[in-house]
């Protein structure tokens, strides 16, 4: 299991690239954007960018550096992993962030690069690299959640186009998206092979979007209705009936993104013990006065650290084996559960002050804490619920069989 190390290119080439990135940052990164992040921009609202944010997005997009390892031919950066790493390091050093994100980058782009036709790649990848087009995902339906293959939205062959009818739900950012990648039914006689992968314009006649109000008060998801929507045949990705295969591949990208230890750590912000020290009652010995809470925070942090070590190990193993490590299968389930536990503890630290809904008496941060706690309940449901993850682990990793 010895690690294969890529032969390092000449040091000077790396140094030159590092210098190039620094020069780029000095010229283009607006200092007022330092430390900001767009991690949640994909689902958090329309592109009401400031001028500086737009200029920054355009500068990064023009270089393809928002999608550093994607092929240059389609607008990506065309960088090796080593150089992409340098890029990331230099951005972090400057307090800069990647303005190109969303589902197009995380999920759809990688899948289209693998399965799309040349024409489709030329049409769709460059605008993703430039951060111009927002994609949304049309997978779930009212009767197709965990049992996704039960989806019913139909695409009927009408010669030069498909006629699409039906409903999608839990469409993240549907109200702001320009386009949707969707799983549709092209054949009712075969559950899995009757599914196709179709690209739909959200402004096409017959598409209607209704935001869903969530328990957190926010509406990041929508119901999307389709009535006699005409979709040109050129928008079929892969073959008719190949949608399940392509769609599952895309979900692998989703899981990787939802559970990546590093990005999760960023999402989670400062560690719990710092917050407890700052906001909790401290006794004369400098300890949290609530000894039960102290014990639970320590328990959480120990397991959180073990999780981060596991995410790192999965990455190292994948690199060394040249394939996905089998422990990657547990990251989504573990990371989302820990995130929820953390949100619960954050509230307990400050009591009712952490359950504010609106109005006077609560800071912005406190209200965000409430919303985060509530919205976080979705993480173990979306992207393949914990129960589905358990099925996958049991069957694919542990070799436990299906019921006969």
């Amino acid at each position, binding site marked *: *299991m*010895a*690690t294969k190390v890529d032969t390092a290119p000449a040091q000077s080439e790396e140094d030159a690239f590092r210098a190039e990135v620094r020069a780029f940052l000095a010229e283009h990164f607006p200092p007022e954007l330092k430390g900001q992040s767009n991690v949640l921009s994909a689902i958090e609202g329309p592109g009401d960018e400031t001028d500086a944010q737009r200029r920054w997005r355009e500068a990064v997009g023009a270089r393809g550096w928002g999608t550093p390892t994607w092929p240059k031919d389609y607008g990506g950066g065309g960088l090796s992993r080593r150089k992409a790493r340098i890029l990331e390091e230099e951005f972090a050093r400057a307090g800069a962030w990647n303005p190109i994100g969303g589902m197009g980058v995380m999920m759809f782009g990688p899948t289209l690069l693998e399965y799309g036709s040349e024409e489709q790649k030329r049409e769709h990848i460059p605008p993703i690299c430039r951060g111009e087009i927002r994609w949304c995902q049309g997978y779930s339906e009212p009767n197709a959640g965990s049992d996704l293959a039960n989806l019913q939205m139909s695409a009927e062959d009408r010669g030069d186009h498909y006629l699409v009818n039906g409903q999608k739900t839990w469409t993240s950012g549907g109200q702001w998206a320009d386009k949707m990648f969707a799983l549709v039914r092209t054949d009712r006689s075969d559950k899995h092979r009757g599914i196709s992968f179709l690209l739909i314009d959200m402004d096409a006649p017959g598409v209607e979007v209704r935001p869903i109000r969530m328990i957190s008060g926010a509406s990041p998801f929508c119901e999307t209705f389709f009535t006699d929507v005409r979709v040109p045949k050129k928008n079929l990705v892969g073959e008719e009936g190949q949608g399940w295969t392509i769609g599952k591949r895309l979900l692998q990208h989703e899981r990787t993104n939802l559970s990546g230890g590093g990005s999760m750590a960023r999402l989670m912000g400062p560690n719990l*013990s710092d917050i*407890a*020290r700052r906001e*909790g009652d401290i006794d004369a010995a*400098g*300890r*949290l006065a609530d000894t039960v809470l*102290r*014990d639970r*925070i*320590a*328990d959480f*942090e*120990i*397991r959180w*650290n*073990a*999780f981060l*070590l*596991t995410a*790192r*190990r999965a990455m*190292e*193993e994948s*690199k*060394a084996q040249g394939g996905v490590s089998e*422990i990657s299968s*547990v990251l989504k*389930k*573990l990371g989302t559960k820990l995130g929820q536990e953390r949100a619960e503890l954050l509230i307990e630290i400050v009591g009712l002050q952490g359950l504010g809904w609106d109005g006077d008496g609560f800071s912005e941060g406190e209200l965000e804490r409430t919303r985060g706690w509530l919205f976080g309940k979705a993480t173990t449901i979306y992207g393949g619920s914990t*129960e589905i*993850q*358990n*099925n996958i*682990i*049991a*069957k694919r*990793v*542990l*070799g*436990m*069989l*299906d*019921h*006969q």
Partner: protein
Amino acid sequence: MAVLNDEQVMLRDMAREWVTNESPVSAFRALRDREDAHGFDPDAYRAMAEMGWTGIVIPEQHGGSDFGWLSLGLVVEELGKTLTSSPLVSSTIAASAILLGGSEAQQERWLPRLASGEAVATLAVDEGPRHDPARISASVSDGKLSGTKAFVAEAHAAQLFVVAATDGLYLVESGAGVQLATRQLVDRRSHAQVEFRDAPAERLGGGGDNLLDDVLDRARIVTSAEMLGTAQAVFDSTLGYLKQRVQFNQVLATFQALQHRMADLYGDLATMRSAVEGGLQALDSGFGIARAATIAKAEANRVLHRISNEGIQLHGGIGMTDEYDVGLYLKRARVLEAAWGNTAFLRDRFATIGGY
């Protein structure tokens, strides 16, 4: 599994082959049934020493191989898988105390003999049934140590005790002034209450103020490595059993209620392995050892506790029989959990290190 170098892969494979062929669980059973006071087979320990395992963290100049802690952990994990009974862990921890705090003369005197397996040593810290290094009353005056240590592991075969006293760690040889009273625990390994009465003692003068903590962290990490092997073995055995046991005309592995429980345990085992390997790697790098040791042992305690209980439940009635191995793992698991810090102790330590 951490990414290993070629030598580590060879070492692990060798250990795996040896425990499978030379030291299966049946070997431990035979020892137990013989009620051997030493609690291990001297021939087996000699074989382990000949393969170099007793000197893995001892420098070459003192007869070891200086292969590092991750390498040691690989071997200890394999030993844990078959409940191999040996003083390897105790002796290695004692050796590390001498390495950290011993004078040149003390190192020269003991390390080569520990590396060769010719001598066995062990660490004696706690004076009650719960690990509590802050409560030590054994004391030394005029080079003579007096006090009583509880549940000292591998005491029966030890020629040398590394003993915690109020003002530091001391080397005490077995013999005059050292009295053992056997304490038979459920794991049926060697444990004894050791009474020191004016026993000649030599102080470990180096290693600084934190010597005891530093040694205990090594003990915590290496113990977690044994626990990792123990947990892995119970998991593998349970999964194997679920795949062959038929009820309601179905193998049990097809039942979703059981699949999800195994998926949970698999996730636990993954984080336990990462925490344990993280501890071993911290020892090799020399950074963040106290924190890494606390994470490793706490995670090992949590996961092994759960897996050893689930192992019995998922094996059903047969898991309750002495004839079946899974019960032996449960008994060893609890003793290892209590060693060098139970979960409450470790959480308190983690919070203290974190300043809250």
